[in-house]
């Protein structure tokens, strides 16, 4: 019998993993904050996708899954789904999702699923700036975006010099 607690040795990581997937069940983003093997990750993703997609719209945003609590929210065609531990605060996790969506929205300018599909590495950069190792790193929206833009700016400067050379 699978028991989550057997796999996860490090306690106290607030968030266990975060998955973004479409209504069609296509994975768009995955971030694991606990060490798991690939096989286990695939299995979890598959099971969770099925469970969440089968939920009806008016249902609770939380569900018990194995010995974890899954918090999910749908934004247009995209599901954001986080796994936390049972004693954690579900509502604040829901707001973490929302804050992440706000950040994406601000960065891409009214974000849509396609932005995330084609620029998924950017979405990862933003996530890493916001959540680090499963914990909220920086809760100020301005600071997160500033950090991302600084790195992007550097990218542009380099690009400019490159285009000057050629």
């Amino acid at each position, binding site marked *: 019998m699978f028991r989550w607690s057997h796999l996860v040795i490090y306690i106290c990581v607030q968030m266990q993993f975060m998955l973004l997937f479409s209504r069609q069940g296509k994975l768009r983003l995955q971030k694991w904050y606990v060490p798991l093997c690939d096989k286990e990750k*695939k299995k979890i993703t598959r099971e969770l996708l099925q469970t969440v997609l089968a939920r009806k719209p008016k249902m609770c945003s939380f569900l018990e899954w194995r010995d974890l609590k899954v918090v999910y929210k749908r934004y247009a065609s995209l599901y954001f789904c986080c796994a936390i531990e049972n004693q954690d605060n579900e*509502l604040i996790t829901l707001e973490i999702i929302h804050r992440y969506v706000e950040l994406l929205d601000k*960065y891409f*300018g009214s974000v849509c699923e396609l932005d995330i599909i084609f620029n998924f590495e950017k979405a990862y950069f933003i996530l*890493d700036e916001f959540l680090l190792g499963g914990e909220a790193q920086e809760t100020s929206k301005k600071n997160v975006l500033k950090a991302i833009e600084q*790195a992007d700016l550097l*990218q542009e400067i380099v690009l400019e010099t490159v*285009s000057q050379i050629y």
Partner: protein
Amino acid sequence: MSDVVEKTLTALPSLLLSVDSQPGSAKLSTSSKLGSLIRNITELTSKHEEEKLIQRELSSIKDQVSSPNTTMRQMKELMVRAIYCEMLGYDSSFTYIHAIKLAQQGSVLEKRVGYLAVSLFLNEHHELLLLLVNTVLKDLQSTNLIEVCMALTVVSQIFPKDMIPAILPLVEEKLNHPKEIIRRKAVLALYKFHLIAPNQVQHIHNKFRKALCDKDPGVMGASLHIYLHLIQENPEGYKDLTTSFVTILKQVVGGKLPMDFNYHSVPAPWIQIQLLQILSLLGKNDPGTSEIMHEILEESLRRAEMNHNITYAILYECVKCIYTIHPKSDLLEKAAKCIGNFVLSSKINLKYLGLKALTYVVQQDPKLALQHQMTIIECLEHPDLIIKRETLEILFRITNAQNVTVIVEKMLTFLSTSEDDHTTIDLVGKVAELAKKYAPDNEWFIQTMNAVFSLGGETMQPDITNSFLKLLSEGFDSVEEDRKLKVFAVNSYVSLLEGEPEKLPQRFLQVISWVLGEFSHLQQDVGAETVVCLLDKLLHMKNSTSETKTWVLMAMTKVCEGAACAPLVQSVCETYSSSLDTVLRQRAQELQHLSRDPALRARVLPPVCTREPLEVDSSLSFLDEFVSEALAAGAAPYKPSHQRQEELAQTKAVSYEPYQLTLPISTTAHTHTPSLLSISSSLSEGSADLSHKGGSSSLKLEGVKRVWGRGGYEAAQVETPSPPQEGGDPSISHTPPLTSEDTESKQQEQQLASSMFLGLDHSSVTLMGKGDSTPSWLKRKERGQTPLNDAQTFTDPQELTDPSPLHVVSPQFPQSPVIANGTSDTEAALALACLDTNRSSTNQLEDRGLSLYLPAELSGLICSEISVLCSSESLELSACHVHKLRSLEMIVFISNSSDNAVQQIQVQLHSEQLEVSCASESQMEEVKGHSVVVRQYSLRVRKPSVHVELIGTLFHPETPQNVQFTYRLPLSSFIRPLTLSTEEYGTMWLSFSNDTKQNLTLVHSENEGPLRATLNVLTEDLHLHVVEIIGMEAIVACRLLQDQPCLMHCRVHGDALAVWLRSPVPELPDCLIYHCQRALQGH
């Protein structure tokens, strides 16, 4: 030249993409390779086509990454595509090494992708991660802030545990960086280190305090993660910070933080919630600390009024905190109101949270459940499973003897529809627990357990079946009741087997077989041949596993009696004596022999009620002699496997600097050594009946009483007889809650509520302590107690465990020890502490008056029994040892029984493990006729070992041969308390490198908690000093006489005490753990 052109051309598309995708403009990047890959995939219709496309893509990526001409820029683009393929579920492990290379060699923006790929591809245990260490090291030292940021980001996500020391100084340095983003990331990196290797960051705890006071709220917020974790582990250590946390929370709530940290105009909600979590940990069971936070909690409750999810999240945390800390009535009232708002909310998420809060508080405040009973009933029928599930959780916590039938029925109904294994296991366990505690009668109990076994199937926790069978076999006080229960069980199982046994889970069939085997003789109406027939049916079922068949054969062996069974038994034997399964074959053989010889069977398998409980020496003390002989012969002392592995790991580990002190890496996982626990718990009654049961069975029947075990305690805990519940009409609780279709549903709900919340309104006592309202039927016989008492009267436990029992020598005043001048208070206290425990043995002394010869300054101290060392002619040598604070004194008595004086007697002592010094200067002694000469030696430990041995020679001029003797004494005689503060303990702990971990059995006592009781036993017997007890943990210190300290960290872990010992002396922890085991075994 053409080369450059080509590179430019290949780089062009990605350049275009990058330039285009600025913030605020989402471009579909038609020209990029990734873009075309994604578009191609979306156009495909079948999974098969996708697979083909990706494989093609991957092989092209593979070609390019390994080509030496690929630039880092191209590599970056390839890496993004590889990440994409990996996300779709295709293996692109060949790119992992290139991801590391990219992070190492790329320019800043390529590096960023390289690090991202590394953090996505690899996990903590991946071997390639070692290659990243150098890159991280380089980037941490970079002058480019962005590079430093990237390095810290990757470190906070994944980093090999063993390599932390290599970068730790650099990360520490970053705590003082002028940029707040760097400081913040450094704090989070240290948090990560703390999680994976707490030992290595222990020395920088004071720097965390600095981070907490950082002027940037982001850095402060990051440090809260660490504090939350630290305080969770040790709330006592951080009480002094309570005011700081309260002040911070006040500032946050008061809106003193920059506006950037607001979230939907709520100031820094994440920081607020973390602070509330920290406060609840600090205020738990601590009225003083709770007092400090009352004001701010009230303020938080008041401020969080806005109707938004985020305020509810804060409110929820507030309520939890208020109910966790020391209660204050008006706060509780407000919190209860708040829970009410949650529960009654129309938003399902809030309702769920309300139920969760209710579950949390209902044990403290059962009236709250009463208030919301109608909502609870509604939620029980809610279409969303999670709401139902949480409601059952509340019901589970308010169950008492009066509402148990209704609640268990609800739980079973839910179980029959549940498809999730995890939920099933959890709920089944809860039903079994309730059934055991509150069952109103036998019939209900057996039927409920039947349901549990049928629904629980194979996934059920094994202890459910174990404790059920234990309960059945031990029975009850009243013989009549006892018989009724067993007969009812037998009847119920017979009818189940007559029905459709194919549908029953294997574990249930095993239980049935065992019960029928043991108790079917009690039911006269069912003949042995019927039972054998039914059991035989199980053997023929297709889905019966060989394990079940083993159980069935065992049951048959017990049951088969009379000629009627013989033919059937014969055929069964024939079938299985040729089975490929050796265990089955064995059982078949046993069945064959025992069924033919009833006399032998009666001897081998006596009925369970007459069976003597087995005595198990779980510490394997009978091997002591063997072990000490082997040790004396030069064998290496036993080291538990985890220690061997750790030592191995240490020798393998890379050292970063020359002559660096390496600290052992601690693992957070509990390593269970093959210790006493596993041995004692795996011995089962099943294996006691038939000693060859082998490893085939997973059902363990814990019928065996350990002589010195916890048996007595367990009985006392579960079986506290209490008067039957007062109040409440039992007839209500038995009526089915929903009777007919046509009654109004409201009425039904009312009725259900009245039966479900029965007994809640009387007093909180019925609820608070689960188990204190045990119905009268559960008065079990206290078997196993009597033999324990018998054993105690015959053999003093002290004598059993200690080869040289301690007692106080006070010849003149046997009842009150005289403390001679010059002995310190500690010594006196030490002596007094031992007086009580050892008084009984003083009477048994037969020291022939030798103790009178003890030097005066040693009287009143703890002294061992005087034992004879050797004798030669008229001379006899006896010895004992006396505990002094600074030394262990060995006293040798030379007594001359002849009339003539013997001259020139010389006694020499030497030992490999001890340092011996003699008090008197002269080597030779003259012993007059009929007198005794006393020589005193001071002993110090040179090399610790479980027992230390002195080899002595008696030189005697009148005999040609010298007489040799040995004197053995346990190391525990040298152990003295070591008084030190928690801080000193902390620094010492870090500096010691030799350690041992082991689980010890807990001592249970009625007056104190198990930890206290166990520590009392240990301190009494071994003179340890308890430095501090923090919740379920304790730290203890001792030393060998005046030097060689040993520190001990104990933590209650389930049924065991996980002990971790550290010392600068390699042998000491192992020796000490041995003596701890021995000490505990005596209780």
